[in-house]
């Protein structure tokens, strides 16, 4: 029927059915969420050929004309994000089967998680700027609750901080949308960009709107001056939630919306691109150095997310086609290996009962699979060849040199070495050394937790294959959508 609407209907229907019946029927949530996750991923893969051959797929709600109704559009960029989101969602739902057993109301978690996925898919699909805002709020609010899901003191505090900063970001975005609407009298993104391009006298309003959007989406993406909420929120959430938050939520709500609004709607200027380069560099450096000092595994990963999102924003700020390719490729890779690392952290925390680097030691012999997948993730994120992370960072650095920023390229390469340093600290602290007697009896995580980790580990190597000529069209169509 209408495959694009299904991206929102399936998760919403799953969420409300679980909320309705989850308490009564045991395992209903497990079955429904896994079916929905797998179905969404297959659906996302099935639209790839259509988007590559037709450039854009459109779905009009109720057959209203695009300008009047709220329509859904998929172009190359949306397709890339849809595949990433639904891949991570599908694997995380499998992982949650046994990980979330320790919580009494698992069905609540599943319903909220599906609501968040509906919000994320909606943000990606929506063709008008206000629908984007509505879905952005849906995903954010579900995220606030999921962070507080364990109801421990630190989780509640983190969630409260996330709520405050997230609401501030939403206010900035909403004000920006209102001003843009008053300026152009339309909410449809394509229309807005046409009207802005046709006005010769633009005044200062667009600059003000740009600043509002940069601050709003910057807060959602946790760029450095706005990053204070992220380490707490991502480290105190349950591990599958952290994997989703770090893997896809900050990228969808922050990076994707930023690209969409600035590259496709308002239009970029050299000032804006310079801002993005500076924000990217600041996030890259600050995130990496703050991560070295952490002793909590998940906090370290959270700071590392700030640093890696810095790479993506830096690449977008350079703005050449090669740099955008590198940025989007890094976005995809980061979603894969950061989810993998958070799932590893969850497996470690589950068996060892702690995630403090000073207490963990020598787990490699007891957890062979977790330790090898974690090695894959760590090497990929640090940019060691031949892992996927190496190729994306290489492209970003080459693009920076080509665009005439050799110093920035050098900084990006050095930060990559710093990344290697703290991931080696993680590896050495958790997996190497003599096993303490306290951990003598621990066992590897169950199969449903191992399977997603293995799949993600394979993808963190195989991701590099996307640069081969036969698969390159997948990334190229996204780059074309950004720069068109």
């Amino acid at each position, binding site marked *: 029927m209408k495959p694009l609407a299904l991206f929102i209907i399936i998760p919403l229907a799953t969420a409300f059915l679980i*909320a*309705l019946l989850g308490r009564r029927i045991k395992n209903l949530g497990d079955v429904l969420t896994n079916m929905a996750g797998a179905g969404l991923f297959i659906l996302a893969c099935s639209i790839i050929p259509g988007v590559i051959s037709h450039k854009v797929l459109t779905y009009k709600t109720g057959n209203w004309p695009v300008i009047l109704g709220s329509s859904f559009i998929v172009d190359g960029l949306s397709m890339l994000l849809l595949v990433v989101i639904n891949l991570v969602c599908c694997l995380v739902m499998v992982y949650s089967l046994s990980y979330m057993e320790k919580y009494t109301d698992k069905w609540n978690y599943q319903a909220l998680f599906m609501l968040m996925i509906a919000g994320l898919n909606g943000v990606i699909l929506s063709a008008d700027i206000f629908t984007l805002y509505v879905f952005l709020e849906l995903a954010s609010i579900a995220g606030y609750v999921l962070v507080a899901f364990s109801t421990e003191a630190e989780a509640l505090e983190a969630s409260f901080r996330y709520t405050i900063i997230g609401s501030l970001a939403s206010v900035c975005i909403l004000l920006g949308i209102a001003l843009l609407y008053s300026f152009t009298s339309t909410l449809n993104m394509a229309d807005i960009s046409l009207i802005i391009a046709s006005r010769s006298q633009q005044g200062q309003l667009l600059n003000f709107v740009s600043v509002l959007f940069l601050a709003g989406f910057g807060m959602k993406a946790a760029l450095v001056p706005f990053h204070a909420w992220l380490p707490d929120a991502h480290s105190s959430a349950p591990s599958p939630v952290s994997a989703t938050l770090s893997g896809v939520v900050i990228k969808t709500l922050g990076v994707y919306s930023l690209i969409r609004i600035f590259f496709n709607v308002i239009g970029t200027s050299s000032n804006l691109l310079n801002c993005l380069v500076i924000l990217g560099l600041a996030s890259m450096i600050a995130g990496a150095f703050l991560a070295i000092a952490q002793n909590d595994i998940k906090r370290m990963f959270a700071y590392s997310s700030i640093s890696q999102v810095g790479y993506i924003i830096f690449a977008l700020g350079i703005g050449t086609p090669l740099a955008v390719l590198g940025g989007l490729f890094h976005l995809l890779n980061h979603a894969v290996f950061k989810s993998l690392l958070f799932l590893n952290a969850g497996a470690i925390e589950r068996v060892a009962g702690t995630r403090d680097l000073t207490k963990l030691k020598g787990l490699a012999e007891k957890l062979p699979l977790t330790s090898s997948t974690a090695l894959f993730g760590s090497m990929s994120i640090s940019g060691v060849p031949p892992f996927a992370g190496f190729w994306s960072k290489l492209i970003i650095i080459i693009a920076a040199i080509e665009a005439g920023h050799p110093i920035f390229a050098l900084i990006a390469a050095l930060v990559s070495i710093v990344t290697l340093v703290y991931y080696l600290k993680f590896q050495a602290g958790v997996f190497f050394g003599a096993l303490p007697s306290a951990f003598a009896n621990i066992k590897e995580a169950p199969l449903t937790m191992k399977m997603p980790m293995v799949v993600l580990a394979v993808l963190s190597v195989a991701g590099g294959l996307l640069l081969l000529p036969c698969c390159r069209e997948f990334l190229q169509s996204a780059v074309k959508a950004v720069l068109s």
Partner: protein
Amino acid sequence: MKNNAPGMTLIVKVITRLTVGLILLYGFYIVLHGHIGPGGGFAGGVIMALSLIHLMLAYGKEAVTKKIGRRRGIMLSSIGAVLFLALFVSSSVGFIKFPVVPGGQHIILGAGVIPFYDIAISIMVGAGLYTVFLALVILITERDEQ
């Protein structure tokens, strides 16, 4: 005046008793006329929820929570949402055709699917708002949960 019963004074209770039905009725009116006048599912649902909250403020929480507790609120809200999605899917596939009578939009069965959307939304919004109110004002301990 001495008043040992829960809730507010007799004056408030009497006024509430007289008005609460009217408020609920007005909510229904807004929902059912949403497609031809101002308002609709959301506004009507809010008014319906407010009538319940009004009752709770005047007579104490027991008067209402005995009938509609938190769980039932969540259930009603989910039913509304599922109903809305089911209507959307079935009408956009063409599984159910809702009649559109030219000039007959003032009757419920003459304005296509919109009045039914309004009804589903009003259930969801009304129950949802009421449940949010319960969650904010009534302290629930773990023992109550079981």
